[in-house]
């Protein structure tokens, strides 16, 4: 699965897609393939919370490991994708689409500049294999 060219990526394998001031956050296809089948997912924040870059957003457990999704941006949480709670599979099947985790209203859009482009992230992942 190729990394969408209009998304930005963090070194910790989260993606961000920005529309206006609102960032949608998920984890990359590389991340889900490393984790393998997700068996549990828990949100660690609520809508309305202020989060800073690096804060834990979601806890993921797979048959192989447990991982935390950290926030690639700072801002206010607008919405959680609660539908995922009944659809863990989406993280494995459609990481860039259906499996978005939450939307954040950016408080510091300049943070996006430090994230990687899709191409840079693809190379970054290749370098780890």
């Amino acid at each position, binding site marked *: 699965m190729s990394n969408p060219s209009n998304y930005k990526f963090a070194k910790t394998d989260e993606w961000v897609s920005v529309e206006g001031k609102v960032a949608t956050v998920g984890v990359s296809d590389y991340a889900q393939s490393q984790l393998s089948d997700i068996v*549990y997912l*828990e949100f*660690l924040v609520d809508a309305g919370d202020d989060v800073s870059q690096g804060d834990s957003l979601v806890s993921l*457990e797979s048959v192989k490991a*447990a991982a*935390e999704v950290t926030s690639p941006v700072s801002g206010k949480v607008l919405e959680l994708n609660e539908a995922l709670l009944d659809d863990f599979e989406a993280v494995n099947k459609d990481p860039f689409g259906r499996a978005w985790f939450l939307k954040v209203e950016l408080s510091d859009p300049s943070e996006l500049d430090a994230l990687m482009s899709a191409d840079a992230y693809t190379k970054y992942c290749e370098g780890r294999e």
Partner: protein
Amino acid sequence: MFIPSTETERNEMLQRIGLSKVEDLFSDVPEKFRYPELNLPEGVSELEAYQNLKDLSSANESTDDLICFLGAGAYNHYIPSSVDAIISRGEFLTAYTPYQPEVSQGTLQAIFEYQSLVASLTGMDVSNASHYDGATAAAEACVLAYHHFRGKRTKFVLSRYLHPQYREAIKTYFQGYEKLNIVGDEERSGFQSTDDLLKLIDYDTAIVYVQYPDFLGRIQDFKEFASKVHEVGAILAISVNPLSLGLLKPPSEFDADIVTGEGQPLGIPLSFGGPYLGLFATKNQFIRKLAGRLVGETVDGNGNKGYVLTLTAREQHIRREKATSNICTNQGLIALASAVYMSLLGKSGLKQVAKLNYDKAHYAADQISKLKGFEVINSSPFFNEFVIKTPKPVSELNSLLLDYDILGGYDLSNDYPELENHMLLAVTEMISKEDIDYLVEILQEVTND
């Protein structure tokens, strides 16, 4: 003393690290602390030591010597000899943590059976492999609730009739949580009603803790109470006496979220206060947040039934710093004892023991209520414990009773200044009708002045 290395080996090791004698290893300890005078008596032979200890222990009086009406969280019950015989088997007695399922199927299955029995007794979906005792189980329930709301709800509401020591344990666990507010059990005049507790509940409340039967022995229906607690989204935890559940409606029927309790009445000896057993059961919803260890049943590659520690991401193996609680010790042998006890008695046996307790306690209450100067306080139903108002201070009365080989009830003024001259009496199946009549006779005698 047994030292496994030889003198030559020790010297070799010292030489390697550039020291000449063992004492040099302690040179960083200030000299005056290095070899303190211990002021111990001369060593004695094993025979002498045995006799010394025997003299000391024979100064105690136990429930073998006295008629015991003392309860308040730990109860004198009959334990079938087969409990001890079964748990003394080497495979159980010396088993260590079953990390390696290939060689621990017996221990794992025993824990699984224990969990199943506790879940079925409390009516809850899932039980963990146990905690230390009723107090630490209660504290762990509060830890669960605190983390469930990610620290955003900062109020715990504790019933004043949750065991005083459990309340202490909860407060000890939460020392240093500055924003946390533990309310509900403050000193007061008169009795606290469940309505008094409900007034304290709001959207900042993480957990509401009640006891069933409560510390004063009373049985209450918490169904409506539970729905009010749930209206504000708080967690309802109920601490139980598991033996009473042989007779009473399980707390699951009140829609309790967490059920904890002291497992001692289920085949565990009094033993001067421990080791006991912390029961901990919850709704399915909290299975990932359950503290402690959990054993699950599964099948191996060939389809054979097997048991493993499961959902361990909750505790220390993977996400240690993110886990609800890092406690993973359980009372393996004691939990097994309770599982053996419950299995031996079965559903009808447990009911029978509970009924015996209930009947005897009610006979005792009935007889005492007829005594001049005494009053039975419990107007609501009770199980095997009830409160009487006494014409003399309880401590005074108890020392008089002791002269007649009776271990009197618990002095409630220890924990409840508003309950001066109030005694909590426990009557178990160990007490005969003659014992009760004897108590009544002596109570009359020592207060007839």
